[in-house]
Every structure is written in structure tokens, then in C-alpha cells.
């Protein structure tokens, strides 16, 4: 491609490996001035890693980056923003204990510091000015940031990203953490940047958002760029096909339709409410049923899963398993419920412990006769249970931290299956996993269903829900808005209509 003046930034065969997973595997990307460039791909396709390389959070193993024709290799956000590149991420990127103004100008103190002393008054005034320009006049710059809600902190982050008038603004799935008017704020920011002849690199799962704003879209899969297309000459299905890399109906989901579901209710929630996340959720799970919970990630579905397991804060209403009301983790687990968390490294796995320890941790009552617990028996039990999902490992004493993403998820699932759990709550079970292991997990779900287990599967990928679940509930803004039964002609469009 001719290096004409219209190209703002260019990234040539970028590589980044984390141990054995090839996150970014030879990506070449070009961003022209005055365009909003979409970047789409399934979870674990390397989009976020690529952005973190550009923003300077991580260093590429190899590859050349140029902005405005000059070489560009930032070591941190501040160096990146000095070259006009700023980024907004999904997780919290502001520091508790500091005031709003301090957070906004963190790293940029030279604007109001003389001989190492900050002029607090000037800082607050500048912050006031930018906040008003972004329409956030009820946020006080000298107030401590942890007094504000997650969403307000995200808006403050956007002010931080925009006050330097960035030439390249990168947004990584931020819309999922914003409410409706927060999202309008973001769209305004994207339009301003384009109007200033800067450009925006947008990562989003919400295909509507992509089609509404983006001029060009690049599709990534498993760390490589599949294609770069113009938004106009492609529709959603074609885009999705490119993203998934095989025809949508794919053989690896369930084929059976119309299997009868017993009407025996194993789990029921009554008036489950958690302020700010969801309100009076009444759902029933039947024996042997795979119930899907779909919707945008901030629609409260993740929090419902956590509330059922009993690990969400200030939840009212009750969860009834069988005919007994349960409260707290111990009772829930005793009643036979298991929870596979979305954030497996922090909430379900012990990285520095062996695979045997990870699996046995939930099955102690089965293993110990009275008080005595024989290590030999524990090792044998763990060894057998890893066969059901055929975890690839040296031996059972290998540390879980050394395993790949797919194998880690297998261990996390085995941990609950070995316990003989009857009711599963699975939160995005196939997140960040390669396609081969996904197939294994899907047919595990069907095997568990045949054994009479019942499951609630929470996922952001509608394709997965359609392919696996008997019944799908759609959540929007904290309420269950729709219900779909499993049928061959069920499509994503019908579900998405009620999601947005």
C-alpha cells in the first residue's frame, strides 16, 4: 500500500506470545485519518492484546508500529498519549483513594506543576472545564473517586482519554459497561474525533454498534487478521460467518430438537433483587433442562448467576432448591448446586496448586471416611475424574498454572462434576477457549443432560445459547424480558431484537 499522507497509523506483522498461546500472530493493520475502524472477532481472537500493544501496556515480541509516519514504540499510556494515542478499556482504570481531577491528569501532571509542586486549584479548574464540556457537571473534581458509581468512573475515564484531543482513540468493549446515556456520550466522542480528522479503533460485540458507526471493519480469528471489509458491502450474517470461520449452523452443537423436558422443578427463584443489577427475577429450572440466560453483558445476567450461588452482595428474595430455601454458599452446595465462574483464574482455580488439589477441594466429604483422608485415594480419585474430560497433562501433580486455557476450564468443570453436582450454573463456560475444546464442552453438556443434571448457562454468544439450550431467557436492564424455546428455526436476529 502506498504510504500516502492519508494513513494515520500503520502496524506491520505484530507478534505477541503468552507462553504457548499465540495471542497476536503476524497482524498487519492500517488506520486512515478521519475513519472509525471496527475490530471484531470471537473471544480470545487477540483483539484486546493487539490494542494493549498499541496503547503501550504490553511490548510486542516483534513488529513495527508507525504513527504519522514516525516510528512508535510506547512503554506506557503516558508515552502513547504524548503521540496522540489514547485508550478506554472495559475494566476499571481509575485509582481509588485519589480525587477525580487527580485521576484525570494522572501521568500528565506537568500541565500544572512547577518545580515538583502541583497547583491543586489550577488542576481542579481544568478538570471542571473538561467535565462540563463532556456534560458531567454534577461530578465534583475535588471529590474522591470511589464515591462515584462504576459508570460515572467510566465516563471520567472517557474525559481523561479525550482531553488530549487524541489522533487515534481506541475503545475496547467499553459500551458493555455503560448505560444508555453513557453510550451516547461515547458515540459523541467518536464522532468528534472523526470530525477532527482523527480516527477511532473500536472493539465491540454489539454488531449493531459496529454497523451504525464504522466505515471499515477488520475481522480477527485466533490471533490473525481474516479480512478487512467496508461496512457498506457486508451484512451481519456474512460478518458473523467470517468471525466464526465456519457456517453458522455448525455440526458441533446439539442436533436433537423437541426433546421433552420433565416438569419437575429443581430450582426456583422468587423475587430475586439486587439494587443496580437486577430486580424481582422469578425463574424455574426443570430437571434435565439446559436453561440459557442471554443478553448484553451489563444486563445483569452474570449477577443473577452469582446471586443464585450466593456470592453477590445485598441480594433480597429467595432461591429454592428442591423444596428447601437455601442461603449462602455452604447450603447451596450442600443442596447439590455448583457454580463455574466466568473469571476462572481468580474465582475457581488454584494456580499454584496441583490438578489433584484443585479437583479434590470440592469433594472432600466424599473422600474422607470420618476424619482420615488418604493421599493415595485422593490422587486415584483425581486421576479417574480427569479421564471424563481427558485433560491433557503430565500427571495429576502438575500445577494448574502451567495448563492452557482449555485445559484449565476442563479442570474447573471436573472440579464440580467429580463432586456429583446435580445442578450447574455455568457463566460463559467457553470464554477465551479454542474451538477444539469448545466442542468437548458442548457435548459434555449434552452428556450431563442425559445423566439427568440440569444447567443454567450464561453466555454473551447467542450462537452458543441457540445451539445448546432447551430454553433461553433474555435479560435486559436487569429484568427478564423474553423467553424462547429451542427450535431449529430460532435465529440470532429474533433474540437480538429483544436484547437491545
Amino acid at each position: 500500500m502506498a504510504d500516502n499522507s492519508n494513513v494515520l497509523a500503520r502496524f506491520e506483522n505484530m507478534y505477541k506470545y503468552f507462553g504457548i498461546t499465540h495471542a497476536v500472530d503476524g497482524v498487519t493493520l492500517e488506520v486512515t485519518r478521519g475513519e472509525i475502524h471496527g475490530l471484531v472477532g470471537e473471544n480470545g481472537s487477540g483483539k484486546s492484546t493487539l490494542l494493549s500493544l498499541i496503547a503501550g501496556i504490553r511490548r510486542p515480541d516483534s513488529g513495527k508500529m508507525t504513527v504519522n509516519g514516525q516510528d512508535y514504540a510506547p512503554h506506557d499510556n503516558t508515552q502513547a498519549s504524548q503521540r496522540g494515542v489514547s485508550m478506554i478499556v472495559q475494566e476499571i482504570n481509575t485509582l481509588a483513594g485519589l480525587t477525580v481531577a487527580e485521576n484525570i491528569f494522572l501521568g500528565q501532571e506537568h500541565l500544572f506543576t512547577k518545580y515538583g509542586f502541583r497547583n491543586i486549584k489550577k488542576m481542579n479548574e481544568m478538570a471542571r472545564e473538561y467535565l462540563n464540556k463532556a456534560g458531567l457537571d454534577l461530578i465534583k473534581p475535588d471529590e474522591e473517586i470511589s464515591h462515584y458509581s462504576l459508570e460515572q468512573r467510566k465516563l471520567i475515564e472517557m474525559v481523561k482519554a479525550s482531553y488530549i484531543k487524541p489522533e487515534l482513540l481506541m475503545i475496547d468493549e467499553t459500551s458493555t459497561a455503560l448505560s444508555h446515556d453513557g453510550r451516547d456520550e461515547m458515540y459523541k466522542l467518536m464522532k468528534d474525533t472523526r470530525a477532527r480528522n482523527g480516527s477511532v479503533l473500536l472493539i465491540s460485540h454489539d454488531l449493531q454498534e459496529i454497523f451504525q458507526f464504522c466505515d471499515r471493519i477488520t475481522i480477527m480469528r485466533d490471533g490473525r487478521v481474516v479480512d478487512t471489509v467496508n461496512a457498506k458491502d457486508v451484512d451481519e450474517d456474512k460478518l458473523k460467518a467470517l468471525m466464526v470461520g465456519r457456517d453458522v449452523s455448525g455440526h458441533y452443537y446439539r442436533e436433537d430438537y423437541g426433546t421433552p423436558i420433565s416438569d419437575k422443578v429443581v430450582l426456583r427463584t422468587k423475587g430475586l433483587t439486587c439494587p443496580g443489577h437486577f430486580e424481582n427475577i422469578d425463574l424455574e429450572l426443570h430437571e434435565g433442562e439446559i436453561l440459557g440466560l442471554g443478553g448484553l453483558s451489563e444486563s445483569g445476567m452474570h449477577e443473577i448467576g452469582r446471586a443464585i450461588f450466593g456470592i453477590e452482595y445485598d441480594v433480597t428474595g429467595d432461591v429454592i432448591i428442591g423444596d428447601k430455601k437455601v442461603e449462602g454458599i455452604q447450603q447451596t452446595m450442600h443442596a447439590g448446586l455448583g457454580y463455574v465462574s466466568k473469571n476462572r483464574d481468580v474465582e475457581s482455580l488454584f494456580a499454584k496448586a496441583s490438578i489433584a488439589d484443585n479437583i479434590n477441594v470440592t469433594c472432600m466429604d466424599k473422600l474422607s471416611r470420618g476424619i482420615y483422608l488418604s493421599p493415595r485415594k485422593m490422587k486415584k480419585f483425581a486421576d479417574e475424574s480427569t479421564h471424563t474430560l481427558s485433560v491433557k497433562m503430565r500427571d495429576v501433580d502438575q500445577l494448574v498454572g502451567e495448563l492452557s486455557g482449555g485445559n484449565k476450564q476442563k479442570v474447573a468443570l471436573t472440579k464440580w462434576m467429580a463432586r456429583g453436582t446435580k445442578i450447574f450454573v455455568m457463566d460463559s463456560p467457553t470464554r477465551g477457549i479454542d474451538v477444539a475444546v469448545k466442542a468437548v464442552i458442548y457435548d459434555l453438556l449434552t452428556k450431563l443432560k442425559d445423566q439427568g443434571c440440569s444447567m443454567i448457562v450464561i453466555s454473551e454468544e447467542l450462537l452458543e445459547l441457540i445451539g445448546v439450550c432447551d430454553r433461553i431467557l433474555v435479560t435486559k436492564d436487569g429484568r427478564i424480558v423474553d423467553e424462547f424455546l429451542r427450535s431449529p428455526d430460532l435465529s440470532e436476529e429474533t433474540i437480538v431484537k429483544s436484547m437491545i
Partner: protein
Amino acid sequence: MSKSKRVLHALMPFLALVLAYVIFKIIEPARFGSPSGLFLLLQQAMIQSLLACGLYFILTMGVFDLTVGAVAMISAILGTMAGNAIGWAGMIPVSIVTALAMSMISSQLMIRLKAPPMIISVGLVLIYEALSTKLIQGKYSLPIDDEFRILGQAPWVLIPGIVLILVSMVLISRSKFGLYIHAIGSNTEIAKNTGINVTKYQTLAWLFCGLCAAIYGIVNTCYTSSVAYAQNMASATSVFKPMMACMFATAFRKYLNPMISVLIGCFFLNLVSNGLLCMGLESSLQNVVVGLAMIVIVRFSNKSRKYDVSK
């Protein structure tokens, strides 16, 4: 957070002081709380808060460094030796340079190594204490010449304290250094991502703490007229008291400049021990009061919830 609520929180440390004063005044009206007595307590608090101010910078970053007591002692010993030989020109530079050198050693060890700082500091304290015993060969304690004693008397002893507290107040709230210290303490990962050179500012915090330890060493030696060696981890246990004052300050950090509440913390501890003294009891009973008070204060100031992990 409404204005009045914030002012109320800012006044809480002062209320704790008044409460302690009133309780002991009722129990022992005659002996306790005479103006000159209170001035002496403030004077002692001013000396102790020299060390506590420096320690605050390290504690904010979540590090428990027990070597600070030994640094103050050894820099005081070497400073006194130089002072007795040359006078002020010898004392101040020697003790400050020693303290900075020792802080540099402990800081590089604790930042670079992935081992808990508390464990590293135990090893360092053992070595520093053996060094201090070797330095004061054959004498129980090293006396200081009379010319330095002036710094220990009334008006002069307050000046280093006041100056250092003001400097630290400005450093904590006004300077880039203070802001970055809080940022690193809040979340080191995000701080690193926003371009803060974490190791540089951690080292700077240790060096400032070393400087405070040196000044504390000098003023304390002038006040007590001689400096003694420490054995059996005595210098480590002597650091626990200023640490308590720093914990007191962290509890009220959002509402009041921490350096003021460090001084209040030290004054509170002295007030309690003096109150017990006036009642004729062992002043070491004060430890019981300090222990209980700290549990109450930390319990109210931390808002951790059901599943938060506090190791």
C-alpha cells in the same frame, strides 16, 4: 459526601484526644493535664512523629519495614561520633548520609526481591543490631557533647518537628511525589500502566523515610543526651509504636492531612501513657489501651465486605 459530614470526620481525631484528656482529667484532676505537662507531651510527640512521618510514606505503599528503628539508631551513633569529633559540621552530614545509604540498601532489597518485605527486614535488623553493638565497643551508651544538648531543650527541639511535618504535609498533598505514592499504594498495576516509574518513587519514599529517621536520630540523641546499642530485635519492637500512629493516620486519610493525624496519633499515645503514670500505674499498661484502641479504629475505618480478602 456533604460538607458537614466531611468536617465531622476531620474533627474525629481531635475528638479522640479531647476524650482521652477528659477521662484522665476526671480520674486524676490534680496531677494530670497541667499546661506544662501537656506541653512536654506535645514535645515528645513532636520528636516521635519525626520517625512516624517518614514511616507513613512507606506504610501507604503497603510495606512493613522494621529496619527503620535500626537505621535511626546507627545513623545517630555514627553522627554522634562525628559530632563529638568535629561538631555540628560532622554530626548532621554523617548521620544523614548513613541513613540514606542504609535506606538505599533496604529499599533495593525489598523492591527487587519478590519476598515479603517483613521477612527481609527481620534479617536486616539482626545484622544492623550486631553492627550497632560493635560500634559502641565497651561502653553502655555513647554520650553526646554538651554543645548539642541545646537541640534537646524546649524551644529548639520543636523546630525540626514543625519543619518536617510542614514539609511532609506539602509533599503528601501538594507534590507529584505524594500523589504517586498514594497511586502506587492504591493499585501498582494501573500506576505502572499510566507511566509512573514505580521503582523510582518507591526508592524515593524509602530515602525520604531514611532522611526522617536520621533527623529523628539526631534530635532524639540531643534530647536524651546519649545513644545506646540495641539487642534482641529491640529496635524492631520500637518501630511498632510509630507504626500505630501511622495506622491512626491512614484511618482518617480522606478527611485530614495524614501528617496532622500522625502527630495527633503520637500525642494520643503519650497522653494515655502519661494518664496512667499519673494514676500511679505502670506506664506499660498503656500498651493494653493502645492495642484495644487500634482494633476499634481499624475496625471502623475499613469497609471490607463479606468476600473481600484481607490477609
